[in-house]
Structures are given as structure tokens and as C-alpha cells.
């Protein structure tokens, strides 16, 4: 699939898409693994239901941001029927661009004293 070269053209991402990409940023995961990781990184504030999770997975798969992994875990350790997903190179660029956009917003909020300044080490 031909991708536009600029990942920023997709921003801002929906919260569900961003959290799923973020959950897959360091390793491939199955659906329930993504759901648990999203709950963990958002301190339990974001809980993706199965419908939102797989509706978003369907769309970002079609956009080429993630792909299904061929590799299956050891059947003794996990259910080999589960599908595992991982970020594509382009998906990595998209999530990085969104993270930078959010970081700039936090910086702006900090200059307006809406967010406490981080203590320097």
C-alpha cells in the first residue's frame, strides 16, 4: 500500500488508536495484552472494550500502521490461536509524531502553569 510520506498528516490520532500504537511500541502483543497494557500506561483511566479495541485494530491494520505477526508463542506458554500484532515502520513514525505533538502541548500547558514544572535532577 502506498503511504503518504508525512505521518503528521494523520494527526491527531484518536485516543484508542494512539493507546494501541503506544502499547505495541516496544513489543508485539495479542488483543488482551494490548488491553492490559493500555490500562497500565493510563493508570486504569483508559479501558478499551473488545468492540473499540478490534474496531480500531481493523482500521489501523487497513492503514498499514500495524500488522499481524507470523510468529506464534510457544503453545505451552500461550494460546497459539491468538493473533499477535506489531507496529510497522510507518506505524512507528505515526505514533512518534503523535507523541511529539502531545509533548509540545504539555510544554505549552507548562508555560501557562497548568502543569507543574518537572523538578530538575
Amino acid at each position, binding site marked *: 500500500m502506498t503511504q503518504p510520506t508525512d505521518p503528521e498528516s494523520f494527526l491527531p490520532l484518536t485516543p484508542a488508536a494512539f493507546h494501541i500504537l503506544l502499547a505495541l511500541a516496544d513489543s508485539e502483543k495479542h488483543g*488482551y495484552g494490548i488491553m492490559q497494557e493500555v490500562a497500565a500506561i493510563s493508570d486504569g483511566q483508559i479501558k478499551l472494550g*473488545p*468492540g473499540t*479495541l478490534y*474496531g480500531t485494530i*481493523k482500521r489501523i491494520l487497513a492503514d498499514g500502521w500495524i500488522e499481524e505477526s507470523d510468529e506464534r508463542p510457544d503453545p505451552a506458554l500461550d494460546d497459539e490461536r491468538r493473533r499477535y500484532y506489531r507496529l510497522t515502520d510507518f506505524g512507528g513514525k505515526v505514533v512518534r509524531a503523535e507523541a511529539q505533538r502531545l509533548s509540545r502541548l504539555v510544554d505549552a500547558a507548562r508555560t501557562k502553569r497548568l502543569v507543574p514544572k518537572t523538578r530538575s535532577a
Partner: protein
Amino acid sequence: MGNSVSTSTRIYGWLLRLYPSRFRLEYGNEMATVFRDSCHDEYQHNGALGVIGVWAETVPDLVVSVSDEHAQEDFQMAKTSLIRVLAIAGIVGGALWIAFGVLANMRPAGVPGGAYRATDDLLTLFFLGALGLAAGLLGVYLHSAGRWATPPRLTLLVSLAGVAWSFAATVIFKTNFYVWVGGWFTFMLGALFTGLLLIANPTARQWAALFITLAVTTFLFNFEDWRVLFGVVAGIVVIVISALTLSSSLNRQSGPPIATA
């Protein structure tokens, strides 16, 4: 596993029928597994109350995602139907151009070596064919151009605008010949640049060849002596472009494109 977990999993499995069938076939088993795992974990930590908590989060998710998926499915189906109608119109348009090319080069019966038939008599065929061409190009734009880079998408739109311009100039507003020529050259240049820009795209090379051929043949069949040859070839190219779109849209019946590793 608690009875509340297995009962909940069965009920959720039944509720999955609310999703569009394609979505359910693709992801239903996974969703049921995720729901079962959530119930199982909550049951381990909080007992039956934990399972009730899972339901409290799942029901709103179910309501919103079922309506989202149906809306997308309906939109996709309407778009696919439109693309098929446009592709069929393109095939008819190509056939009309072939007829135009052949008939315009026939000499009147009993006059060997006589003048070619006056094309004015046949212009209806040409313009209906051009309308079919516009439909076919719009079908390509809606079906395939979304996967192209921006420049060839824009030149395809320019090409489409050129056909609409020449058709409107002649058939609707009955302006002079040069206004028609302006629109026709816009179409041909748009098609030519679409083809040239698509050469760089390895997944769209068949479109590159077709658009370049379309531009060249539609240019050449303006010359009376070559009309039979290039009218027929241009008609065939329009048919092939539209048939590719139709065939690809029919193949999508089985489901949206899913990237696999």
C-alpha cells in the same frame, strides 16, 4: 472458572451477533477470547462483583462499537455499489467509443473510395462514450486512487474535470469547438501525467500503462485517418480500466483488505 464467567462468555458470544457479519467473522472469536480473559481475571481478583464490573464497561462499548461498525459497513457498501455502477458505465462508454471508431471510418455503401461517413452523425456515440469514460475515471478515483500518492490523484481529478468540461461545453452549453478542445486537452494531459506519475509506484504500474495508453490513443483518434484504429484501442482501454475497477470491487465482497505479516 466460575459459573458467572462461563455464563457471561456465552451471553457475550450471543451478543456478538449484533455486529456486521464481516466484522464478526474476522474478529468475533478474538473479541470473545478477550472478554473471557477479562472476566476470568476479574473473577480471580474480585469474584462475581468483578465480572459485573466487566459487564458495566462492556455494555457501553458494545452499544457504541456496534453502531460504529454498522455505519462504516453501510457507508462501505453504498460506496462499493456506486463504484460498480460507475465501472459498468465506463465499460458501456468504452463499447460506444469502439462503435464510434468503427462507424466513423465506414464509407457509405456503394461508394468505394468515397468520403468517410460524417462524424456529426455519430457524435452522440462519442459523447455518451465520454460520459462513460468520466464515470469510469470517477470509479477509479473512488476505488483505487486512495492508495496513490497525492500528485497522481490530483492529475486524475484534473483529467476527470477535463472530460466534464468538454462534455458540458458541447452537449449542455453548446459552446464553440475550441472550448471543447480545451477540455479535451485537459483530460488528455491529466491522464498522461497520471500515468507518468504512477510509473514510480510499483503497485500501480498497470494503471500507469493504461493511463498513458488512454492519453495517447485519445489524442490520436482525433485524426480522421487513424480513427478506426485508435478509437477502437481507446475504447478497449476504457473498458479494461473499468473492468479492473469492477473486478477489484467484486473481490472486496469477501471483506476489507487486511494487512498480514
